[in-house]
């Protein structure tokens, strides 16, 4: 079955072509099911490959399938090839699985939209690009998927293109991603100049002897690749596009800005774990940026009132967690959190979508409340998601986040503190959103209230599936019991070389006592419950306390509420200055100087011309005189020679 790995990306491509070219004639149902079906098919293929992989010996689980040689120029030979190994198969399953569920959900959600066909073809194109990204066997093909995914997010964010804010958000997302890709591109050039090839297997095999351990070359490569990752996964410097990306339809946010695209950065970092392991400096940079983003985004998340903005900032913060996990060397934990996050964040977004559907487009939590009775299924699934993300015991979030905190503690106390504080804030703002929307008294306007209705089964069933997954997802990686670490065992062959380099480097081996781990699990559970209680106190028992806090720290609140004015800062620093400078370049330099010089030369020639013109007086006498003088001169010359 592994031979047919190229089928996985081809299915969504076929779906895209069918919907794109012939969609006009199909009804909404057929378009929807073609879209969902194609992604489902690739999920089925992925699962069968996963099973085949399982019964292969752990060591040999890395097969490459070359389809054809794409670019062949001089000594550069880039094939279209797919790499099947534990990491890529996990990513493929997450992408196609969650993707298929979201497709089914969006059949219901997008019902009645005019651009239905366009939406589904773009969604299929997105899944195709994402699958190319995760299953590529070389950096260049991954870059193709990387930019293709950026393009689809541009198209889908700008789906409601009548709204200027939507197309602006789309453009902003594409440009910021492009800045990240700029770093990624430079990193790839360095890789080519050092290794002469882009294939993962060759590059990572040759890495130890070609690059000096901890040398500035490997650090430079890894940092450049990390710049690409921050662009795509919305970390500190390049995160501003994600909150605006909420302009797109909610299933888009669920698929792209929760489950799949934003995780591309984490996948890339963990794929290049060998190189990152060889550059401890960049590892720490990754961890620091991850931690900072987690903390920073969480603070903003607390003050937001738009439910999708809250979830957007929570995504940024959870991604921060994943990067911190990679930064501390726990790559498999990062991927584990990535998987669980995909489940519950997609669930949360889709639940928010069905709330929005019910509230006929209203997103502001201040105008919601007490929806528990009207939207039972949405309420329970949203609650499951919140429990998972906050990290309450049986839910998936608990296990993955706890593991990250555990490894963070092992690495350095500071990381653990950052993670813990961020975890508290996460559970606080998540429960805040639950209580503001579903509990307390209803602040819904009367006309909106009377046609509050539960979403159709087509939307609620996917919610339930994901709720179940976010409940069960954690059991794959139970920390304490021996042999229960099935998830990281499965991934260990991929990260073994990186772990070896880190162990070799790290002077003290982490003492892996069971008791310490249990204590830590207790602490992280306490953190989660703390967040829950504070939220309950603030929004259920005494709803006016948030108001009083806001007055006392009004300055701080305004700062955080306006997202630290980062967007305005970026506009001022980069966007406007470049636009002004180029306007200057065009008006002053191009027209005045260069064109001026050219026209100046023409003017000089014209003045010379007018001087010469005076010689032609029109009087015959002058001409006769000049003839005579000429003759005399010639005769004189002839005589005197």
């Amino acid at each position, binding site marked *: 079955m592994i031979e047919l790995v190229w089928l996985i990306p081809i299915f969504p491509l076929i779906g895209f072509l069918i919907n794109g070219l012939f969609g006009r004639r199909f009804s909404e149902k057929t378009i929807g099911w073609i879209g969902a079906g194609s992604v489902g098919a690739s999920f089925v293929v992925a699962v069968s490959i996963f099973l085949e992989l399982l019964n292969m010996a752990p060591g040999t689980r890395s097969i490459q399938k070359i389809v054809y040689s794409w670019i062949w120029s001089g000594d550069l030979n880039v094939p279209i090839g797919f790499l099947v190994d534990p990491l890529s198969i996990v990513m493929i399953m997450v992408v196609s699985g969650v993707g298929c569920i979201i497709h089914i959900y969006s059949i219901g959600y997008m019902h009645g939209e005019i651009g239905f066909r366009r939406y589904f073809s773009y969604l299929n194109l997105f899944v195709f690009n994402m699958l190319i990204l995760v299953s590529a066997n070389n950096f260049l093909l991954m870059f193709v998927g990387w930019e293709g995914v950026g393009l689809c997010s541009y198209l889908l964010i700008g789906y409601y293109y009548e709204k200027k804010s939507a197309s602006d958000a789309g453009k902003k997302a594409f440009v910021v991603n492009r800045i990240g890709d700029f770093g990624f591109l430079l990193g790839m050039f360095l890789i080519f100049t050092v290794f002469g090839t882009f294939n993962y297997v060759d590059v990572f095999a040759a890495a130890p002897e070609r690059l000096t351990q901890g040398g500035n070359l490997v650090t430079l490569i890894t940092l450049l690749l990390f710049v690409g990752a921050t662009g795509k996964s919305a970390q500190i410097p390049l995160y501003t596009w994600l909150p605006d990306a909420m302009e797109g339809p909610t299933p888009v946010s669920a698929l792209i800005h929760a489950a799949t695209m934003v995780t591309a950065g984490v996948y890339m970092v963990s794929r290049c774990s060998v190189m990152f392991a060889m550059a401890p400096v960049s590892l720490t940079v990754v961890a620091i940026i991850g931690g900072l983003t987690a903390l920073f985004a969480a603070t903003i998340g607390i003050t937001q009132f738009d439910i999708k903005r809250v979830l957007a900032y929570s995504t940024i913060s959870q991604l921060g967690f994943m990067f911190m996990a990679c930064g501390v060397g726990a790559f498999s934990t990062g991927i584990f959190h990535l998987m669980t996050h995909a489940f519950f964040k997609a669930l949360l977004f889709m639940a928010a979508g069905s709330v929005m559907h019910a509230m006929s487009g209203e997103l502001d939590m201040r105008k919601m409340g007490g929806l528990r009775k009207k939207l039972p299924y949405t309420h329970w699934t949203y609650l499951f998601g919140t429990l998972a993300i906050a990290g309450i015991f049986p839910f998936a979030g608990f296990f993955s986040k706890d593991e990250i905190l555990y490894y963070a503690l092992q690495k350095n106390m500071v990381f653990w503190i950052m993670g813990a504080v961020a975890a508290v804030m996460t559970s606080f703002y998540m429960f805040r959103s639950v209580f503001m929307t579903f509990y307390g008294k209803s602040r819904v306007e009367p006309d909106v209230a009377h046609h509050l209705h539960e979403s159709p089964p087509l939307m609620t069933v996917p919610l339930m599936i994901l709720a179940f997954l976010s409940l069960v997802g954690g059991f794959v990686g139970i920390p304490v019991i021996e042999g229960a670490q099935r998830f990281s065992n499965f991934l260990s062959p991929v990260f073994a070389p990186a772990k070896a380099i880190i162990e070799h480097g790290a002077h003290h081996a982490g003492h892996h006592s069971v008791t310490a781990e249990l204590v830590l699990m207790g602490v992280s559970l306490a953190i989660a419950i703390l967040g829950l209680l504070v939220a309950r106190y603030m929004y259920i028992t005494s709803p006016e306390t948030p108001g009083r806090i806001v007055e006392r720290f009004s300055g701080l609140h305004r700062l955080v509420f306006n997202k630290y004015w980062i967007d305005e800062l970026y506009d001022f620093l980069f966007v406007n200055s470049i636009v002004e400078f180029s306007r200057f370049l065009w008006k002053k330099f191009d027209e005045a100087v260069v064109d001026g010089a050219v026209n100046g030369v023409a003017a000089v020639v014209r003045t010379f011309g007018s001087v010469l013109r005076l010689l032609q007086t029109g009087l015959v006498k002058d001409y006769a005189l000049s003839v*005579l003088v000429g003759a*005399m001169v010639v*005769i*004189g010359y002839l*005589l005197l020679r």
Partner: protein
Amino acid sequence: METILFYVLAAVTLLSAVCVVFLRRPLHNVLFMILTMIGLATLFILLHAEFLAMVQIIVYAGAVMVLFLFVIMLLNLEEISLPKEPRPLRWGFGVILALALVVVLFPIFSHFTPSVMGKSLPGAVGNVSNIELIGTELFTTYLLPFEVASILLLAAIIGTVIIGRKLKD
């Protein structure tokens, strides 16, 4: 005796040439021009070019000067005698220019034909008459230029007719 005759004729020709150039009224100019032509014809005779003398008188004095007279009468230029020359100084400049020209022309002649300079007038050229010589020479070696000359005259005639005709406005 011959030299005296030469000096007299030269003086007459020069004086009439001066009058042609310097007199104000065009009629006088034409008349003195005719006198110069006749003077030159006599000089030609002195140089044993009888045929040329005859042609000079017939063509130049006869035809060309009559043409000038005709044009002057046609345009009755007498009344609009042009205002006095504004700056006599220019005439001074003119004379100097003339003398400079003579000074320049003279050495050229001497430079190119040293052999002939200074010799006196040789005797008559054989007993063959001047006109016969010209005739044989003209219609043998110079036949082509002769024909071309006729075409030139034809062109001149056509040109004159076209330029001169009255515009049918």
